[in-house]
C-alpha cells in the first residue's frame, strides 16, 4: 500500500474473521441489518486493497483535512506535569476541529462506492455530527444526525454548524437523552431505510466491521505521531495518552505503538462526579462485559443486564459502552485505563488554555488531566504524547458556566484572581 495517510492495520491479527478481539466484539445485530453490515464489510475489504480508494482518501486527507496534523511541545503546561516533556498531537487542527474527520471521509467514500445516497450518524459532543454533515455537503449526500436532547442543549453551537451544513438534526428524547440513545435511534432509522442509507458510525464500537474499519481510518494519528516524535524527541514516548468515550481517538493514537512494548498506552475515562458516586461513564473501570450496540465489550449495566445511565460533563464521553478493542487491550494488560473527574478535566482545560494558548475540547481535557498525573509519576525524564482530539470552541458555554466567565456572573472578577493563584500554586 503506497498511501501515506490511509494506513490500515498491516498485521491484521485482530479482529478475527468473525470480528472478535479476543473475547470481545462480534456482531449482535437484528437480521434486518445483517445484509447491510455484511455489505459494509465486503466493500471496505475491497476498498482497502484498491489503490484508487487510497489515492482518493489521501488526497482528501491532505488537501481538505490538512494532514499531517502538527505535533506541538507544551513546556509551560509540562511544568505542571512533574517536568516530563509533553507533546500534543494536534487533531484539533484538522478541518472541522477534531479527529472525527479521518473516519468520516473514509466512510463517505465507501458510501459512494456502495451507491447509497443518504447518511445517518449519531453524535454526542457534535464533533462526529459536524464532520459527517461536512462530508455529506462535500459529497452531495442527504444527511440526518441523531443527537440526545441534553447534548443538543450543551453543544448548541455544533447543532447550528450541522444545520448550516445542510444536515437534519433530530433531538432524541428517549432514555438518558444522550449519546447511547442517539445510537439507538440511528439504528431504528437504519433498519427502516437500509436500502439507500449508510450508518456512518462514529466510533470504534458497534458490530463488526465497524470497530476495525473506524480504527483503520484513525490509525494515521499514531503513525504520524510516532514518526514526528522520533524526529523531534529522538525516542519513543514513555506513555501515549488519550481520552476514551467510545474510544476512536484513543485507538487511533495507540495502535501504531502497540508493538512498542516500552510505550504505556493510557486511556482516560470520564469519572464524572467520581466513580464512587455512581455518576460517571467510566466503562472499563466500573463496567462488566455485556452486549450494547452490536458488540460484546465492557458495559455499564446492572446485575440484570439493564444499561445504566452514564454521566459526564463531556457530551462526547458520556457513553456506557466502549469499543471492543479497548476491552481486549485492558484484559490483555497492554492498555491501562484510569478515570478522570469532571473537575480534574476542567482544571486541565483551563491550564492548557492559560499556559499554551490552546483551548482543548472537554473530551481531550480528560487526557490532559491524565497526562498531568502520569507526568508526575514519570518525573523529569518522562516523555509523553497526548492526543489533543478536538478543540474547545464548542465547549465555551459549558466552560463559561463552570468557571463563571460571563459578565452576568457576579463571581467572575473574584474567580479570575483565584485562578491565577491556583495555577501558580499547582506548579510548585
Amino acid at each position: 500500500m503506497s498511501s501515506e495517510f490511509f494506513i490500515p492495520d498491516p498485521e491484521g491479527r485482530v479482529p478475527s474473521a468473525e470480528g472478535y478481539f479476543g473475547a470481545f466484539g462480534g456482531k449482535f445485530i437484528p437480521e434486518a441489518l445483517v445484509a447491510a453490515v455484511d455489505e459494509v464489510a465486503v466493500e471496505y475489504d475491497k476498498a482497502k486493497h484498491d489503490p484508487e480508494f487510497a489515492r482518493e482518501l489521501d488526497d482528501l486527507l491532505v488537501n481538505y483535512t490538512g494532514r499531517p496534523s502538527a505535533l506541538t511541545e507544551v513546556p509551560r503546561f509540562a511544568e505542571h506535569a512533574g517536568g516530563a516533556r509533553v507533546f500534543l498531537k494536534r487533531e484539533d487542527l484538522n478541518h472541522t476541529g477534531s479527529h472525527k474527520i479521518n473516519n468520516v471521509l473514509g466512510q463517505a467514500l465507501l458510501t459512494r462506492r456502495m451507491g447509497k445516497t443518504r447518511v445517518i450518524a449519531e453524535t454526542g459532543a457534535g464533533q462526529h455530527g459536524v464532520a459527517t454533515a461536512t462530508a455529506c455537503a462535500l459529497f452531495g449526500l442527504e444527511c440526518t444526525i441523531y443527537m440526545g436532547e441534553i447534548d443538543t442543549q450543551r453543544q448548541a453551537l455544533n447543532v447550528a454548524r450541522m444545520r448550516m451544513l445542510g444536515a437534519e438534526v433530530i433531538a432524541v428524547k428517549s432514555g438518558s437523552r444522550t449519546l447511547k440513545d442517539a445510537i439507538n435511534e440511528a439504528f431504528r432509522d437504519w433498519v427502516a431505510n437500509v436500502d439507500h442509507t449508510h450508518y456512518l458510525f462514529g466510533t470504534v464500537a458497534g458490530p463488526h466491521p465497524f470497530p476495525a474499519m473506524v480504527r483503520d481510518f484513525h490509525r494515521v494519528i499514531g503513525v504520524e505521531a510516532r514518526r514526528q516524535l522520533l524526529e523531534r524527541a529522538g525516542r519513543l514516548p514513555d506513555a501515549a495518552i488519550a481520552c476514551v468515550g467510545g474510544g476512536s481517538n484513543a485507538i487511533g493514537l495507540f495502535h501504531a505503538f502497540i508493538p512498542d512494548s516500552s510505550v504505556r498506552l493510557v486511556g482516560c475515562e470520564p469519572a464524572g462526579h467520581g466513580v464512587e458516586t455512581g455518576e460517571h461513564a467510566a466503562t472499563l473501570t466500573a463496567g462488566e462485559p455485556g452486549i450494547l450496540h452490536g458488540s460484546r465489550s465492557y458495559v455499564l449495566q446492572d446485575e440484570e443486564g439493564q444499561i445504566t445511565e452514564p454521566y459526564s460533563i463531556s457530551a462526547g464521553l458520556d457513553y456506557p459502552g466502549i469499543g471492543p478493542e479497548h476491552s481486549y487491550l485492558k484484559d490483555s494488560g497492554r492498555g491501562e485505563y484510569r478515570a478522570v473527574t469532571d473537575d480534574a478535566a476542567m482544571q486541565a482545560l483551563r491550564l492548557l488554555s492559560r499556559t499554551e494558548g490552546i483551548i482543548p475540547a472537554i473530551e481531550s481535557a480528560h487526557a490532559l488531566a491524565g497526562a498531568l498525573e502520569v507526568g508526575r509519576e514519570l518525573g523529569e525524564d518522562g516523555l509523553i504524547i497526548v492526543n489533543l482530539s478536538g478543540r474547545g470552541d464548542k465547549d465555551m458555554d459549558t466552560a463559561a458556566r463552570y468557571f463563571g466567565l460571563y459578565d452576568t456572573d457576579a463571581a467572575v472578577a473574584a474567580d479570575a484572581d483565584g485562578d491565577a493563584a491556583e495555577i501558580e500554586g499547582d506548579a510548585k
Partner: protein
Amino acid sequence: MSGKIQLLSDTLAAARAEGRSALIAYLPAGFPTVDGGIAAIKAVFEGGADVVEVGLPHSDPVLDGPVIQTADDIALRGGVKIADVMRTVREAYEATGKPVLVMTYWNPIDRYGVERFTAELAEAGGAGCILPDLPVQESALWREHAEKHGLATVFVVAPSSRDARLAEITEAGSGFVYAASLMGVTGTRESVGAQAQDLVRRTKATTDLPVCVGLGVSNAAQAAEVAGFADGVIVGSAFVKRMLDAPDDAAGLDAVRTLAGELAKGVRGTA
C-alpha cells in the same frame, strides 16, 4: 420440568388443522404493573390468542418503536425484574395451559446467565424465546441450553434476508419462524407490505416449521390478509397501544380482550 416446546408446536399444528392461522400476541411483563401485565395476558388468551410472547423489558430496545418503548419504560421504572418475568410466564401458563414465550434482547440473558435463565424459564412453564438481536452465528451457546431445557429458539427473518441465509436460519431455529413483514421497528402500520408474502414463500421453501408474520399488524382486516399466506399472525404494539390509551386498568383489559377477539376472527376469515 422441561420447557413447553411441544405444546407450542401442537398449538400451531392444531390451528393449521382447523385451516386457519394462529394468533400470537405480544405484551411486555411489568406493564402497567406485574400483576396488571399478567391480567392482560390472561385477557388476550380469553379473547382468542393462541400463543403469547411476554416481553422482558430492556433499557435499550433498539428494535422497538415508540409504543413498546413507552411500555418498557413504565415497566422498568416500576422495577420489573427477571424474577417478575418468570412469575408472569408461570401464572399465564398455569391459568391457561397455553404456550407462553419470552421475547427480549440478548444482554439481559447474557448477564443473567444462559443456563440459569433457560432452566428457570423451563421450570416456569415457558415454551421458548425470541431474541431478535442474537443472530444465528452468535447463538450456539443459547441453543445448546434451550434444547437441553425443551425451549424453542424462534429466529427472526427479514425481507433483506437472502435465500441461502434463510436456510441457515431456519435450520438452526425451532418452534416457528418469525417473519418480519417489513424493514423497520415494531409499531402499527397502515398496511402490511407485499414483501411479507414473498418472504413467507421464500422461508417456507427452506423449512417445514410454521412461519408467522409480525410487525405492523394492528386490526382484523390486516390479520385476515396475513392469515391468507402465513401460519400465524403476531400482534404487539396494537395491544400495548390499547392499554396506553385506556382511561384505567380495567378498561385496558377490556380493550385488549376485545382486540384479541377481533383478531381471532380475522385469522379465521370470519371478521
